């Protein structure tokens, strides 16, 4: 198993088929992401010497996240964390009855994601999350300021979208392969296809873990902490808005 990405097994007649991802990669991903973030932290610390004044959270407040979206975010966050923990438990050798929790959390995630997609299309300002070519200049031009969402935020959102949809789709397929209160497994899936699903589920899980760690890291960065606060309380201060956003592109209502 040393160093390989894909694990293989023998099917019922002894022919080699894909079994799933090699969980050695879990350690590779974990290490890689921690090194990257550590590096980022250090750089930021160095830059931090050149004092730039932190916008005040006092004063007038504007709405950033609707309560429904905040609820969605946190439900999603919890289910993802539960899925990651229960999913990696058997790999890390924790002997817990993880499977039921895992698929229940998976269902929750699936439903809230569907809800979010529908809401995003019809009730939210969908454009504000669109990632256009212009956005890519943003990081390199301090003059340029984003609308409601920064380039990084859009990137994180769309990366998350892809990865989460991947785990959900593969997860649902695998869900159909086990006995549940709703159905008995049919065993009708050819072993090679089943293995492929496990592989994709595993790979997308690894990506999800990487993104989640990154996301949490940035959410806790001092200069970004107000976004996290806004994901709880819903508002940011006008100072914060002015410092980080281009009001011509984003003019939220004042929070009462």
């Amino acid at each position, binding site marked *: *198993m*040393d160093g390989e990405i894909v*694990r*293989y*097994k*023998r099917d019922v*007649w*002894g*022919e*080699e088929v894909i*079994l799933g991802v090699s969980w050695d990669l879990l350690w590779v991903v974990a290490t890689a992401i921690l090194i990257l973030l550590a590096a980022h932290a250090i750089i930021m610390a160095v830059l931090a010497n050149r004092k730039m004044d932190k916008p005040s959270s006092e004063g007038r407040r504007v709405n950033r996240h609707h309560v429904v979206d905040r609820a969605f975010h946190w439900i999603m966050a919890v289910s993802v964390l539960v899925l990651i923990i229960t999913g990696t438990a058997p790999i890390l050798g924790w002997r817990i009855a993880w499977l039921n929790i895992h698929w229940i959390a998976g269902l929750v995630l699936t439903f809230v994601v569907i809800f979010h997609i529908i809401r995003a299309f019809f009730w939210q300002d969908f454009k504000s999350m669109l990632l256009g070519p212009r956005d890519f200049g943003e990081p390199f031009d301090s003059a340029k300021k984003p609308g409601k969402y920064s380039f990084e935020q859009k990137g994180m959102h769309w990366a998350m979208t892809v990865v989460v949809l991947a785990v959900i789709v593969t997860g649902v397929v695998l869900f159909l392969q086990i006995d549940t209160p709703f159905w008995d497994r049919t*065993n*009708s899936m*050819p072993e090679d296809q089943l293995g492929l699903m496990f592989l994709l589920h595993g790979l997308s899980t690894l990506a999800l873990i990487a993104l989640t760690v990154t996301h949490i890291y940035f959410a806790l960065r001092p200069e970004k902490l107000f976004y996290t606060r806004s994901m709880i309380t819903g508002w940011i201060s006008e100072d914060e808005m002015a410092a980080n956003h281009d009001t011509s592109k984003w003019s939220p209502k004042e929070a009462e």
Partner: protein
Amino acid sequence: MNPKLTRRRFIKGVIASGVAASSASLWYAATGQSRPSGAVERMVRLDVNGQMRPVDVAPQETLASTLRYKLGLTGTKLGCNRGECGACTVLVDDVPTYGCSVLTHSVKDQRIETVEGMESANGQLHPVQQAFIDELGPQCGYCTPGQVMSAVGLLRSNPNPTRDQARQALAGNLCRCGSYDSYINGVMRAAQIG
């Protein structure tokens, strides 16, 4: 078999079944770790039928294969090689044991007796052997050496067994010819003459 299901399984047509990386269980796959010292020495001296026999024994070698292929004692038969038939039964310190399911190294310090060792020096048959002939216990005879050893083992620990004790003692020896009754008759007869 569900045709739908099998058809799906066979859509593939031509497939190679070669080049598998690891054996059935990845979880037990022997990784190239360094081995601790102190593994068994191959050369052993076995006490077989009262003789000390020096023999080169692989660590994983079963007693039956040592007896049959290294010492030429082919009276010990391999009926299943899985401890499911008893044709390979030998005595280890008087205890009936499946030769196919014990390592030679595990019994290297013990007294091993096979069917070849049952006759007395002057070539006289063991009472069990004589009784088995008198009762015509053997049919095809392939399980007979094992039956003999189980019977001898019983009579050493219990010279006057009841018929039921004899049945319990020989229960670990399969006979496909179905000579069970004749063998038990033989054991009871041997208990009398022995």
